[in-house]
Structures are given as C-alpha cells and as structure tokens.
C-alpha cells in the first residue's frame, strides 16, 4: 500500500477543468516531483490533497484511509502537511513563535513546544533568526521557515509547493540539500517544482501534469525524454535548463 494514493481525482472551476481524472501514488520514504507547465493544475492538486479543496470526483487515500472531505487541520493531524507557493508567514509573530504553532500540534507545554521549534529551526538552518519577526526575513528564509513550521508538526508526508521559486542558485543548492536531509530523516516528500535542476537532483519519481491530466510518470531520466512531456513543454525554455 502506498502512503498516498490519488485515484481518478477531478476538479472543475466553472468552465475550467483544472484537474481531470488524475491518478498517482507516493510510496513511503520516496521523493516525488509533480511538474508541468504553468496552469497545469499542480497547485489545485495540492489543494485537493491537503483538504483546502474538495474533489468533484475520485478518491484520495492517506495511509489507506480516505481523506476526502476532511478539513486541512485534520489531515495535518494524520501527518500530511503542506507549504504554500506564496509564503504565508505569521508576520507579527517571531520566527520561533511561527514554528511553535506547528510544534504545539504534538506537544501542549510552551517550553516543550519552544524546544521542538528550536530543533526544527536548527534543522533548516534558521536558529540564529529565532528572535526576529517573521516579516523581516528574506524570501529565502521565509521559505525555510515554512518548511520548519511543517517539520515541527512531525509529518509523515510533506508537500512542498515550489520552495525553490525566487531563490538564487546558491539558495537552490541549500534547499536541495535540505529536502535531501528531510528525506533522509524518514519523511516522504511530494513537491511541485519548476527548477528542473532540483527536480533531477532530488526526485526518485516524477509525475507530469498537463491541462489537468497526468501525461507521464516515471524516473526523472525517462521523463525528460518522454515525447508527450517534450511536446507539452514545447516552447518553454525552462524545461531544459
């Protein structure tokens, strides 16, 4: 049984079929990338899996249990946590407090939550920023903060929505290293990514979404040569970068 099973899931917004009968699985302990041109429906799929949207049809199972209709906080409870493409820091709270919100999910006591939050901050390399206001962090730091908050909840499956976006090459390398360490620590990772260098470097499997449909999935090396994928990305230089 796969950790996450997405089965013939569809979602329509008015006249737009954002996701159309998408099926894929994520095995425990793997790193899977979800790629596709802009507007392919990747973030919609994330919203469906994390409970922010309800699918029109199909089923989503996490650890064998259907999670369709559960609210995001209940899904988080089960160990499935996500980040957001547009970072959403709690701006007026300190960096430490931001992560404590995630940590409180597992511990009740403020001191224990602070310890847990510090450990998560250390893991992503933000411990020196613990006392700063989240609003004052750089974009790259805010992305790592998002990851730290998620880690503090103690997830089994982490959904990362374009955590490399807007980062410079050095920062991308740092983030690749971070994702690897998260995977090494036993957390399964599903990520939406545009930076192909990162996709190739970290993913064991790649799922390609185009116009809401999954057109290919497999090993990264196979995917870049897949005729349907090349066709979908035609004209998009980024693919080969």
């Amino acid at each position: 049984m796969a950790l996450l099973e997405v089965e013939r899931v569809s979602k329509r917004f008015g006249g737009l079929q954002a996701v159309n009968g998408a099926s894929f699985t994520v095995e425990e302990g793997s790193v899977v990338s979800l790629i596709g041109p802009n507007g392919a429906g990747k973030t919609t799929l994330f919203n469906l899996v994390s409970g922010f949207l309800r699918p029109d049809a199909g089923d989503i199972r996490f650890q064998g249990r259907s999670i369709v209709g559960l609210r995001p906080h209940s899904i988080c409870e089960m160990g499935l946590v996500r980040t957001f493409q547009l970072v959403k820091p709690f701006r007026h709270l300190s960096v430490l407090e931001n992560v404590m919100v995630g940590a409180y999910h597992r511990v009740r006591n403020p001191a224990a939550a602070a310890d847990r939050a510090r450990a998560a901050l250390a893991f992503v390399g933000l411990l020196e920023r613990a006392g700063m206001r989240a609003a004052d962090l750089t974009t790259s730091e805010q992305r790592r903060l998002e990851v730290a908050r998620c880690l503090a909840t103690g997830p089994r499956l982490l959904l990362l929505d374009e955590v490399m976006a807007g980062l410079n090459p050095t920062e991308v390398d740092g983030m690749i290293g971070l994702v690897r360490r998260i995977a090494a620590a036993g957390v399964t990772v599903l990520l939406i990514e545009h930076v192909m260098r990162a996709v190739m470097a970290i993913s064991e499997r790649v799922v390609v979404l185009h116009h809401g449909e999954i057109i290919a999935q497999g090993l990264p090396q196979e995917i870049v040569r897949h005729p349907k994928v090349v066709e979908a990305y035609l004209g998009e230089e980024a693919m080969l970068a």
Partner: protein
Amino acid sequence: MPPWLAVQPELAHVGAADAQAGAARGAVGTGAIARWVTVGAVLLVAALLPQLVDHYFLRTAILLVYSAYLAQCWNIVGGYAGQFSFGHATFFGIGAYTTAILFIRWGISPWIGMWAGALLAAATGVFLGSLSFRYGLKGPYFSLATLAFAEIFRILALNWDAVGGPRGMLLPLRESFWNYQFPEESTYYYVILVMLIAVTALVAWLAHTRWGMYFQALREDEDAAEALGVDTTRHKLLAMALSSAAIALGGTFYLQHMFYIDPDLAFGIDVSVNALLPAIVGGPGTVWGPLVGALVLTPLGEFTRSALGGYGGVHLMLYGAVLITVILLLPGGLLSLPERWRERSRRGGPAARREGERGAA
C-alpha cells in the same frame, strides 16, 4: 521522538544558541525589572487613588478602568484572534440583563447572577460565531454580522415587556455587599480595578499558551494556521466564548454601578464602540494596548464632554475621527510607536512604513 529530530549533527549548535539567547535574556532582564517596577508603581497608585482624589476624579477613574476592562475583553477575540467584533454589546447586555432579571425576579445575588450572565453570553457568542464562521464571514463581513446581532438583541429587549421593554429595569435599592450594592463609590472602583487586573493577567498568560498562539496564528493567516493543524473555527469560537463571558461581567458591573439598565444602554452601538476603541487606539493584540487606549481616550472624552457639553454627540464625532486616524496612520496602535521609532533610527531613514496591518479591519 519524530524521525527528523533524531538527526543529531544539526542539533549540535542548539545548545550554543540557547546560551546566547540566555545571555540576551539576561540583558533584557534589567528591562523586565524596570517594567515590573513600573507596573508595581502604577498598581500602588491605583490602589491608593480613592484616598487621594475627590469624588469627581474618582468617578472618572472608575470610567477609565471600566473602559480599559471592556477593551481588554474585546482584545481577546478582536485583537488576538483578529475577529473584529463590532457587536460586543450583545454579550455586555446579556450580562447586565441576566443579572438584573435573576435579582429582581428571584432575589438571586448578582455575584451569582454575573456568572450565569457570563455563561449565557459565552453560549450566545459561540452560537453567533458558529453562524458567522460557518458561512465564511470574515473581516468586515463578520463585523457587520456582529453589529446586526447586537441590534437584534436591542430590538428584542425593547419589545419584551417582562424585562421592562423600553423602560428598562431599575434595581431595587438593597445596599449590601452580598447584593453587589455599595455605599461607597470607592468600593465600585476596587471591584472594577480587580476585574481589570484579572482580565489583563488572563490575557498576558493566554498570549503565551497554545490557545493564545493559535489565536494569533489564525489572525495572521488563516490558511497557514489551518495547514499547520490549527482547527481555526474551533479556536475562533473559543476566543469568542472567553471574550463574551468576560465582557458580560462588565455588563453586570455597569448595572450594579448605575442601578439601571435599558435596551440602549445594554445593546446600543455605543457599548460596542466603547469596547473596541481603546484597544484599537492603544494597540490591538497587545497586553497593554487597551490600558494605554483607555488612558488616552477617557480624559479626552471627559474634556470634550465638559468643554463642548452643550453639543450632544460631539465626543462621539471626536471618537470617530480618532478611530479613523489611528486605523489609517497607526494600525498597530499607540504602542507600536516606540517600535516604529526604533526601526526608523535603525534603518537610518523613514523606511519603517510597511508597519503591519494588524487588527485593521
């Protein structure tokens, strides 16, 4: 232990950072001492005040403390949880009316009646909150809904003969401590002072608990909070219940101090505005904001009332102007001023303009 915590090399420098933080805390220590000395001095003056001043001044002091109390109650749901209630008169009125009915009809002591009122107000808060949040009312829409609820209660009270309709209810004079009726004005002062200290202590404590952190998280970003496992609806209702119960106790105080309550005094929009204004002016979502706001607004109100007393409602226009100015120019309230100045001097320029949108509707 969660798997990622088992990765030890990353945690090696946690201890060092803790030591640093400890040193920083030591440095802050003198600041903390200064703060507690200030708090102690203010408390001492507050406690001795009735011995030092005349009757008029004492009444103004009661008004100030009472106004800070209402604002601190509002602050729980409006400031910390960011749910901008414009209808806290609902819960204030429920407190006052419940106490009055229980005392007049059945002779039940207001000391008991006030808790009955608080419970009823909390239940009403949860009910009205769940109605609003179920239909996803946020920001100004939530404010309008709460405003409408208060108006519904006002009209209900106005048309309900058993509670006196438009005539309201007059408490029979039976002076005794047990009846929450005191011969000395100073006793009322001490009662509301203790209430203010209690609710402020509650807020200060709450801010650092899991609940308080969840309130602030859902205020800052509801989706992010939800994604991190915060049941946002449940915690909004919790904040609503706490805030409603607390302000209901303020309703009882008002009743016992004035010996009288009617639909306008209980459920009128003035009450709702008086509850939110000091918090917003002082600094919503901060422990001391409501107190600072009341400290500024009460004397201002008293002054305009006496200087321009002939023109009814001028002080309300002034309040309106103050509210608009603060929301536009100083969304963090007066308490955010020092931080702004610090930021400005640190950045060596007027760069601190992106001060947050906290609390602003």
